[in-house]
């Protein structure tokens, strides 16, 4: 009975943590312009934070060779010729943290040229940390906290009847009915 209630509690908690609606902050949406300098192989600034609902204008300036920007989650893309600036305007209507990546092959480390756009709080991260905590609590609650308790479960006994040694490498047989 007690066990069952514990289980129920955990399941409710998991759903709560995973799906409960949370307030997203109260900032009034504005429009803002971010200048991003792209050089091999980084964006500067590499992390950009805006508020949900903001009208965001990204000015992508390629300082050395041609670079691009592909924004995960929004699936938007622009490219900038070397020495020039390309402009992308969009409404930040999805909250969370999104990676943006260079979309034009610009050299060896090109596939790893990555930055982050933060739109409001990163709820996915917080929820997943909370889920991890729940998982850990669940297992810890079933574990002796102090080290002087009896073992919890019966360990599989090796088969006493046959024991075949692997002559070369010392692998031995244990589990067969």
């Amino acid at each position, binding site marked *: 009975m007690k066990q069952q209630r514990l289980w129920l509690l955990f399941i409710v908690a998991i759903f709560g943590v995973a799906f409960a609606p949370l307030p997203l902050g109260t900032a009034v949406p504005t429009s803002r312009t971010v200048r991003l300098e792209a050089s091999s192989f980084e964006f500067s600034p590499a992390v950009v934070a805006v508020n949900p609902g903001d009208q965001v204008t990204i000015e992508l300036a390629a300082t050395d060779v041609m670079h691009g920007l592909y924004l995960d989650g929004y699936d938007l893309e622009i490219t900038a010729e070397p020495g020039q600036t390309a402009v992308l305007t969009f409404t930040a209507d999805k909250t969370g943290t999104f990676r943006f990546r260079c979309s034009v092959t610009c050299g060896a480390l090109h596939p790893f*040229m990555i930055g982050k756009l933060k739109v409001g709080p990163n709820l996915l991260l917080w929820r997943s940390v909370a889920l991890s905590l729940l998982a*850990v609590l669940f297992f810890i609650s079933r574990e002796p906290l102090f080290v002087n308790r009896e073992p919890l479960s019966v360990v599989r006994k090796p088969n006493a009847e046959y024991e075949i040694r692997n002559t070369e490498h010392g692998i031995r047989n244990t589990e067969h009915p």
Partner: protein
Amino acid sequence: MKRSDLTRIPVVKALLVNRWPQFILRIVALAGFVVAILAGLLGTPVGSRNLSIVFVWIAWWALLILAAVPLFGRGWCTVCPIPMAGEWLQNGALLGPRKRETGDQRSETSSNLQSLVSSLRLRPWPKRFRNIWLQNGGFLLLALFSAVVLTQPMVTAVILAAFLFLAVGAALIFERRAFCRYLCPVGGFIGLYSQVAPLEVRVRDTAVCAAHTDKTCYTGNENGYGCPWGVFPGGLIKNTYCGACLECLRTCPHDNIAIQIRPVGADLTVARGRKLDEAFKAFIMLGSAVVYSAVMLGPWGWLKTTAYSVGSLAWLGYALAFLLLILGALPGLFYLATWAGTAQRGNRRALRQRFTANAYALVPLGLMAWIAFSLSFVFANISYLWPVMSDPFGWGWDLFGTAALNWTPYLSRVVPALQTLVLVGGLAWAAGTARKIAAEKRGGTAVPVIIYCFFITVGLLWLLIG
């Protein structure tokens, strides 16, 4: 859970025993391997336009870590082309075992090559290296240069060729698949993670093995080679060093070999045969997943450049930090966690044993970390595959009309959620495993190990979806 034996299904058994299906897969893999080497040597130096990089580090890697390892364990080793040439030389045949020669046939059946190889006396692998420390070292070495290896087609080609070369060399000096078992840096971690796979090769009845004095699965007969991995199937308790090559299925005259579906992670809680080299493999893999996530998928340009500028002072610092983290900090903190969770803290030996045992809880954690890392890397970059299929060398070909297809990340809205599920699932899996391992001994608790796993998971979450 009752294990069900796939070889009881006649079609499955026939397909596995017959050499052709496996041979064809291996030939296809070998062709891909050779083309990858050629593309790396002759093709464009731009990694994302060269088949070698895209094929090996995106397509093959995706197949390996997202499917082959978690589902089939050593399934890749079943079809791996790397040891083929060495095996052909050792066996004096492309398909099937060496003909057992009778006196008067000798002159007819032996080609020059065969007599050459038979004149080489193959040695057993040296005793002191019968562990995976060499594989641990090999993987670390590759990992230190990973920023270059993963992006320079030429370097990738040289490494692939070196694998082939070493495998043939090892086969001409040592018995069986010595390269696979003791040298291949990939094989080392495939073995470690194959312990979680829901499939296993085992014998049906050990009594039959005990009574079978010839042990043809180990020595070989007219139907197949003796175990290329130097493992006696009757003694198998874990997947780690079973290469799933299927030879024992062919050589056992008593139909005693089974390929079973089993609960995932079954080997992790087998207390026997745990070893320190395997424990360190778990740290190396887990640590590399963390470092790769930071270097390759993080927003820090300087870190990427540092990892790439091999030989520079900055790179030396990076290499040192990398090694300290993986061989020092991670195992050190884990040792503390083990200490805190053990009843006999004074007993050094018992403590070391517990340390090794507990490290097997990091196997699911590490595998899931690699899957989470690979999800974003692979889905973001797999679209490079379509153009390089048409233009493998970057020479302007268009074999299938896909050369002009643009790069575009796939599933960019779903991947972070998937990564979350994978990482949290991995944590729960590791915690459950840690509990079972702790329960093997009187008076231990898994709590400190679980907390350790929690912090690693939070770190990975932050790096990958933060």
